């Protein structure tokens, strides 16, 4: 019995049948269509309109007028307060990122190198839990510690360092700094842990055997191999701080405002075009960072680990 041509061994590759014929080509993309529509409707289109509106003008009745101009952007560079707030935000983000790294690197190093696998998972879980719990609540929890009648003030008064409640830790940049380090530390820890986990520590012995000082072994052997983890950690701390408005609102007071607070204030005042321009500036900056570091960024190490 002969098979009709086109069917038979030739038509059915033995090694890799793969998905059946209907799902070849464009059909394979079909399941992604709802996702693509959602991404377009809820993300790309809103962003695009925000970009458009950032070149428009808000008139006295708070309506958007298609009067194309770049004033909303030039204002950013010419009004000293805006530029200063932006620079301050960058500085804060850099400081928090540095502090987060400095806290997380020894922590994860210790965890991976000196703690047994079983207990590592337990400790890691302890880090992950605050990461998933409400961001709002974590900021609020600090208010009760740093505030005028907070635990820190009470403790300092009890041991006689302070005579009366101090506003030293709250409604200023120090408060914002502490809370931001707290909020973003788990990101850093998860990213660094994932990188260190793959590192073979016997290399450090080999390096020392070959005459490297511990700091040299650290710089030339360890750091290059966990580079992607370090960069992922930095990105996951630096970027969200550019959009922080809640922490400054709750513990920063007037002095602690960051760039996102300006954006929110513009929207509260219905200055939509102006607010949109500032939001776009942040978005462009963030996107640039993501594109530049895309090769090193391991998002799933942080958000999709089991």
């Amino acid at each position: 019995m002969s098979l009709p041509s086109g069917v038979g061994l030739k038509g059915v590759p033995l090694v890799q049948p793969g998905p059946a014929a209907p799902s070849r080509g464009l059909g394979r993309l079909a399941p992604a269509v709802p996702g693509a529509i959602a991404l377009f409707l809820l993300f790309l289109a809103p962003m695009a309109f925000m970009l458009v509106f950032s070149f428009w003008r808000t008139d006295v009745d708070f309506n958007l007028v298609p009067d194309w101009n770049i004033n909303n952007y030039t204002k950013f560079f010419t009004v000293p307060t805006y530029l200063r707030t932006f620079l301050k935000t960058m500085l804060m983000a850099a400081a928090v990122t540095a502090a987060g790294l400095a806290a997380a690197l020894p922590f994860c190093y210790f965890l991976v190198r000196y703690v047994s696998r079983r207990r590592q998972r337990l400790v890691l879980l302890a880090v992950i839990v605050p990461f998933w719990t409400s961001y709002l609540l974590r900021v609020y929890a600090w208010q009760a510690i740093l505030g005028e009648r907070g635990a820190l003030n009470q403790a300092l008064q009890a041991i006689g360092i302070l005579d009366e409640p101090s506003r030293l830790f709250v409604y200023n940049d120090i408060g914002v700094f502490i809370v931001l380090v707290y909020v973003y530390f788990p990101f850093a820890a998860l990213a660094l842990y994932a990188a260190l986990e793959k590192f073979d520590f016997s290399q450090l012995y080999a390096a020392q055997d070959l005459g490297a000082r511990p700091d040299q072994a650290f710089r030339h052997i360890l750091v290059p191999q966990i580079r992607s983890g370090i960069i992922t950690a930095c990105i996951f701390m630096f970027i969200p701080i550019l959009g922080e408005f809640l922490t400054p609102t709750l513990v920063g007071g007037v002095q602690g405002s960051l760039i996102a607070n300006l954006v929110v204030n513009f929207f509260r005042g219905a200055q939509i075009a102006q607010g949109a321009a500032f939001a776009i500036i942040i978005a462009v900056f963030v996107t640039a960072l993501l594109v530049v570091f895309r090769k090193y960024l391991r998002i799933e190490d942080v958000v999709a680990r089991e």
Partner: protein
Amino acid sequence: MWWLVSRQIDPLETMPVSPYARPTRWVLWLWAVAVLVFLYLPIAFLVLFSFNEPRTPGLPIVNLTLHWYEVAAGNSLLLEAVKNSIIVAVAVAFLATLIGTMAAFPLVRGGIRHADSVRILATMPIMLPGILLGIAMLIFFRRVLDLELSLLTVIAGHLVFTTPFVVLIVAARLQGFDQRLEWAAADLGASPRQALRHVILPLISPAIAAGALISVTLSIDEFIITFFTVGPQVTLPLYIYTQIKFGVTPEVNAVATVLLLATVALLFGSGLVLRAGRRLLRQGGR
């Protein structure tokens, strides 16, 4: 915390490498303990104050009481907020899981050109600060589409960032999926639909469940995007926010404690199903 330092380590570890090795290790241990204390101290205070009697949350602890839990349980505005949050979370989890799971297939299985760029684009909503997403959607819904803000717009707002999480989680599972199982199914005469139904879905179902639970967690806790996309309704984080800003009582701490417990329960749930899934996958791979 003594158990953090484990005693059985490879023999190299006992080699006297440097006179500083031991002190370094103890310093690192102290640091790790300090970090854990730093992570949990605020949460401990948050929970502790919920049992404290005075009207303002804080020290000293005067009298342990469940009074604030009773107050919370009798607060109709709060209960309304909880109800809204649950409605939103369930809708978001359902839609995000459905959309995200479907999208994960082409992303992992190929067929997409410039997969790298698409991956970046698909995860952008996770990486961009929520305030940008919230504001962009607010403008889009109000000024472009002229929609009335409601829980529906909140659901849409939450979908934007929860769907990518589901995509990442399911994609990670699909990547570890032994495709030979599928070929075996096809070889045994299963149609693609049957293979999907009886082979693929059961094997990746733990990841799907975990994605759904994570979506619920994210949605219930989400404040910033909700803040911009909500109408006159109140959700739980919005309620907590107003309380914090205007006249906070330990009632908020009581609500917070319950919310923390719920989040932890959801997390453990998703961790458990993922672990069960790994076992299933290992067995299936044999």
